[in-house]
């Protein structure tokens, strides 16, 4: 394909692409390599951070043997996992068993293609977006690909031919499907306010309102964060791998690098979701209390500064994920589902209506989209948040305990099992 044809195609999908092919091509390559490298390093060190932060919360040292203060621990872990024996359960579906870890990992990584990680650079060769693929449909792309991650987990659980893994896979599919919906619904207010599905535009809009979405759409932030925890299978939603119930759930049968890939996928998902929260609700690369970065393309030092800001925000949410994990107990399956369907989804739907109504009213009143506009949205959200948390905090956030089945129902189920169960268990061994 000739450069000119490529450029023509490129300019169809990306209206802001530079006018020349080579600067764009080289910039994309550099961004690709840099992003991937930083991404993998951060994922590796998140595993160390998890252990260090948990150690810090639990009054112990954490890994401190490999390298200075345990800093080379991720390398040692990686080496160990590569050297270990790959086991394959005899009755596993081999193809899917091998494919599943990759399917769990790849979607998390792909999402980074559309996340803007710094302010656009006014380079000598034209404007360069600090985003791998400035897709016009960025947010839809994110929603579509983040739901693909569940396939890796479900297939891992199913193909292992292990009951624990199967239960883990089933739990995960139910959980992901339910929370995918509330996650998508919690994003609609963001789209309503931005009027656009491009992630870069969402960042620009937050900068132009002088208020980040976490203030103007606080309830949406809460809904999205809860859903993000469920999407990443992190505590308190780590039911698919609940180690005290299902050994390790869907990856019970995995060893060595395949297990490691699931592990990496979990942290990769955390990193991606942290970046998404930062982008959607915390202004992305927007430098707080500074206007110079919001004027379109900026100078290179400012690009670096905005990247550092984005990085810091993402790291904070990574820490938040870890913090929650070592603080809260785990939900039960039925509670998880009832929170997803009976709490989060209705709230998200009601919230969409309220935000849409507020925006309509504000626009009809002829308000410009600036600070006052954001402040009014913030006030509406503050009221909503107070009402919501007052209602939720009356013991309703967790559904009451699942009552024990009555003996008649139990006897009925047992009669079914006598007729249908053909697995046997010997009572005496």
């Amino acid at each position, binding site marked *: 394909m000739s450069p000119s044809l490529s450029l023509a195609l490129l300019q169809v999908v990306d209206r802001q692409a530079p006018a020349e092919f080579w600067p764009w091509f080289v910039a994309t390559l550099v961004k690709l390599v840099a992003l991937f490298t930083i991404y993998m390093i951060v994922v590796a060190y998140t595993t160390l951070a998890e252990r260090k932060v948990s150690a810090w919360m639990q009054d112990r040292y954490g890994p401190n043997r490999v390298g200075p203060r345990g800093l080379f621990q991720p390398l040692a872990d990686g080496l160990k996992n590569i050297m270990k024996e790959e086991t394959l359960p005899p009755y596993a579906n081999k193809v899917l068993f091998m494919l599943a870890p990759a399917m769990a990992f790849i979607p998390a990584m792909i999402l980074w293609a559309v996340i803007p990680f710094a302010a656009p650079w006014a380079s000598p060769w034209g404007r360069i977006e600090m985003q791998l693929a400035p897709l016009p449909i960025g947010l839809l792309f994110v929603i579509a690909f983040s739901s693909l991650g569940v396939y890796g987990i479900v297939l891992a659980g199913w193909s292992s031919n292990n009951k624990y893994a199967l239960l883990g896979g089933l739990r995960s599919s139910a959980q992901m499907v339910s929370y995918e919906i509330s996650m998508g619904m919690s994003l609609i207010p963001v789209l309503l306010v931005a009027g656009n599905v491009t992630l870069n535009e969402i960042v620009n809009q937050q900068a132009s309102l002088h208020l980040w979405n976490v203030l103007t759409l606080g309830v949406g932030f809460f809904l999205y964060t809860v859903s993000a925890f469920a999407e990443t299978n992190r505590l308190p939603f780590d039911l698919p791998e609940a180690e005290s119930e299902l050994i390790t759930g869907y990856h019970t049968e995995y060893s060595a690098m395949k297990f490691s890939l699931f592990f990496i996928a979990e942290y990769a998902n955390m990193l991606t979701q942290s970046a998404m929260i930062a982008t959607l609700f915390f202004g992305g690369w927007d430098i707080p209390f500074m206007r110079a970065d919001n004027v379109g393309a900026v100078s290179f030092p400012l690009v670096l500064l905005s990247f550092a800001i984005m990085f810091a925000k993402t790291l904070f949410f990574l820490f938040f994920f870890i913090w929650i994990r070592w603080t809260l107990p785990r939900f039960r*399956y039925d509670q998880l589902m009832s929170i997803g369907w009976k709490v989060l989804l209705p709230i998200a739907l009601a919230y969409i209506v309220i935000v849409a109504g507020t925006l309509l009213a504000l626009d009809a009143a002829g308000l410009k989209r600036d600070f006052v506009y954001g402040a009014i949205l913030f006030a509406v959200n503050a009221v909503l948040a107070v009402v919501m948390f007052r209602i939720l905090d009356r013991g309703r956030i967790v559904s009451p305990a699942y009552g024990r089945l009555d003996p008649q129902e139990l006897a*009925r189920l047992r*009669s079914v099992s006598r007729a249908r*169960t053909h697995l046997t268990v010997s009572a005496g061994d």
Partner: protein
Amino acid sequence: MTTKQVEVSLSTTGLDAQGRPQRVPLVVDAAGNVVEMPPPAALEPELEGEHMLINIGPQHPATHGVLRLVLELDGETVVRCIPHVGYLHCGFEKIGEYRQYNQIIPWTDREDYLNSPGNNVAFAMAAERLFGIEITPRCTVLRVIAMELSRIMSHLVWLGTTCIDIGAFTPFLWAFQRREQIYNLLESWIGARLTTTLTRVGGMGADIPDGFVENLRDFNRDFPGTIDEIDRMVTRNGIWVGRTIGIGAMTADEAVNYGLSGSMVRASGVAYDVRKDFPYLDYETYDFDVPVGSTGDVYDRFLVRMEELRQSVRILEQAVARLPDGPVNVADARVILPPKSKATSEIESMIHHFKQVMEGPRPPAGESYVAVESPKGEKGYYLVSDGTPKPVRWRIRPPSFVNLSAIPRMVEGHLLSDVIAINASIDIVMGEIDR
């Protein structure tokens, strides 16, 4: 529905074609007769699913040892639960028949290994009842200290593992740090940490060392802070409450009928505590409360045990305050060795020492039973002597075993996750169950 269910028989009345125990619920019919529950109406065909049999254990992160639960699951609902025990059977009771009384004490360390000092004390009490020995006042108070320390140790393991089983990992390590502190105390006292072998027939293996009382006071001062911390972490946490309230509930009648004891029966509302009802070691002179729950669910058991930790600290404080001076061991030549200096210098003492060590003390023929309030429940030691230095029968009444026998009643009808929570709340130690 006029029928009222009175009891679900759990005894193995027979095995079905697939080797599973058959259990038939009994109900009271309209005429007041107890009859077997009528067979249920047939299901609509499309609703019938296949049940899955799943093994929880013997190797599973949440079975606290080698308990094996065979669960029949309908989806994630437990339709049937059959506990299998015996994977850790060591034959302690039989081994005891070939050991002198003091030689049995190390074996008591190993049955309920979270409660070694308590077992040592309880066994020594049973042996002393056989010998007819009254222990010294100092020894009595030291044994109270040992029992309450060991109750705290055991409850801390229960607390930590329950938190892990329900998904909160952090309180586990906070609890274990305090447990280390108790282990350090015990190490300074007797030299061992886990398998303490703290007592001898007629006294203790050692008197407490210098500084022990101060360290124990430090512990008494610091420990309630840790309980409060864990309390803040989980007791009112919405997820924790949702995971535990209404789970595995046992009514007071059921709890008594199943022979439950300890925190299990107290959580169901029965204020039965051996320390209060059949006092030993002067427990009647200590000022402490027996916490009692109401519904007997996992949450009540949790609250009861948390309060027991605080009450144990109260007892420890009183014991430290009243600790008298004086000898630790009784002056009874039948059971106590002569001083080492005399054994190496006087022929009578040397022969006495030799006979004591090689043959062992001889109790009069008879039998004795001592029940104590162990952290798991009512723990009994039964000894039969025919006048020889070794018992002809040693029998342990293991509270974990009796409490575990109610697990099918508690888990059937609940979800898989609840099985883990209920199992944690029973607080079993397989060493004690399989012996």
